[in-house]
């Protein structure tokens, strides 16, 4: 009976649901794959988004995503280079950087060592099961794991910042093992991208 009730509610709200996605540029990229170099630019390119506060309700502000596609010739984007890989995936409940990411992280470390003014942000993520704050801490652990791996390769702490998005910015939504695995991830994002 409750199910029937909710299906009635759902039917009534379907129109509203369908119109909420909007057409505005946003930071979320749900299309990214494991070796999607474009992901980082999407993530970093969202700096045009805005937040406004008010004592009472205010008007909305639009976001403008910066275009991250103009990096022609950038070695970090060369599809032939392991640097074009930007995501480090983790096994369930694990925070160890797997061996398969060694070449990728060595390439990024080499770039950072050669360009001392380059800054990299390591963005950890988690799947959406359980507490948001605890998942934020789990994402941070994944970001720290990549930060430490780069530090071992000689990258200065000054060039790196490990942060977490927790479960708040899923690349893949849904309650499937595939989605969970996609979101157990740290993205390597350059500050100038």
């Amino acid at each position: 009976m409750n199910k029937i009730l909710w299906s009635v509610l759902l039917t009534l709200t379907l129109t509203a649901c369908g119109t909420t996605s909007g057409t505005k540029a946003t930071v979320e990229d749900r299309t990214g794959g494991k070796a999607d170099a474009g992901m980082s630019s999407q993530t970093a390119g969202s700096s045009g988004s805005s937040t406004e506060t008010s004592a009472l309700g205010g008007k909305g502000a639009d976001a403008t995503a910066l275009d991250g596609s103009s990096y022609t010739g950038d070695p970090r984007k060369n599809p032939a280079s392991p640097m074009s890989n930007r995501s480090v995936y983790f096994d369930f409940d694990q925070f160890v950087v797997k061996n398969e990411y060694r070449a990728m992280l060595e390439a990024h470390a080499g770039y950072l060592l050669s360009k001392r003014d380059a800054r990299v942000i390591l963005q950890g993520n988690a799947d959406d099961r359980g507490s948001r704050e605890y998942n934020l801490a789990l994402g941070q652990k994944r970001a720290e794991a990549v930060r430490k791996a780069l530090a071992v390769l000689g990258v200065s702490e000054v060039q790196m910042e490990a942060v977490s998005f927790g479960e708040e910015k899923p690349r893949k939504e849904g309650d499937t093992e595939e989605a969970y695995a996609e979101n157990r991830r740290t993205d390597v994002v350059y500050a100038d991208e």
Partner: protein
Amino acid sequence: MMRTLLLSPLLFFAFLGASFSAYAAMEIQVIGGAANKIDVAMVPFQTAAGQPMPSLTQIAGDDLTRSGQIKLVDVSGTQQPVELAQVNYGIWRSKGAEAMVIGQVTALPGGRFEVRFRLLDVVKQTQLAGYSYNISPEQWRATAHQIADIVYEKLTGTAGIFSTRIAYVQKQGKRFELRVADADGQNPKTVVRSNEPVISPMFSPDGNQLAYVSFEDKKPVVYVQSLQDGSRRKTAAFKGSNSAPAWAPDGKRLAVVLTRDDASQIYMINVDGSGVTRLTRGGSIDTEPVFSPDGQMIYFTSDRGGSPQLYRVASSGGEPKRISFSGTYNVSPTISPDGKLLAYIGRDEGRFRVMLLDLASGQTRALTDTARDESPSFAPNGQAVLYATVQAGRGVLGTVSLDGKTHARLSESGVDAREPAWGP
């Protein structure tokens, strides 16, 4: 359960009507209730021309019903007294009423209204309370909630929470809004609007400020915002992630989680961002701090034992002590105003539910029967817990009484609600 099934369709249609006048506020669904409810007759107040809708007795009656401790008596088909002298107690006793509320609204010059009401003990045939208010139309809902608070406190001996406020985050499409609403989900006001997530709001002890975490800077940063003028400051924006703000009872300091020195660890910080001191140490996760009401203890979540469990540590520092022992996932503690109970989220067979822990005895029990519960927050009177859950794939807010018998749902069509916090 059977009763729930029978009630649902009726409630549904009642909400449909209510939602038109509520302007995108939340809808309320109440399920169950205490075994021994107090029967109260809310006699419709005599109306004045031009008075706001819905009526005071409707709003106050909904409040009382939501508590689960009061049942409204059918008041139709009988003479409806306005003044004390018009009350025939025998009639109301025969309708099963133990108490009754009568009153009237009178229009005053300048668009104001006078509201008079009396709470009567039908059995003893005495007046329990009587008040009059001189109000503007904007104070209509607040007045109804005050009436409900008075009725509730006189009849149960416990302070009411109907005049309190809640904060929550709503997600619509890819827009996030931090909102503050009346405890019944009505009268919502947006205080932060962002294209980036907002999580973990918490009211300051005086209710005048909100601490929260915003991702607008491409990383989690703790903000403290005035609810009076909307101004805000970055209280914690250190290198790494900044999150999980919790107000100290004095309203001057916060516990926050920073990663600037190590893994997620708990620190104390002044509201203006000064005076940072580290509270916990070690390479494991320490997060979700919450102060005991006397400010002496901090309860928090840590994975130092291998799985996330609840711990406590003196707010002056020291060795943390584990306090949750059953299950492999116990997180998000919130403490009762008397400091005796913790509500938290526990995972059992893949379900995340609101649990209650008696700190003295160590006894635990489940308050909810749902599967995706998050972010519990105690009511200011300690009688209920507000939390987020998922229903039909959508985030909704719920309240549950401490006996687990009364559940209410607050939801809005097409909107995902999460991260609730109950304020003063």
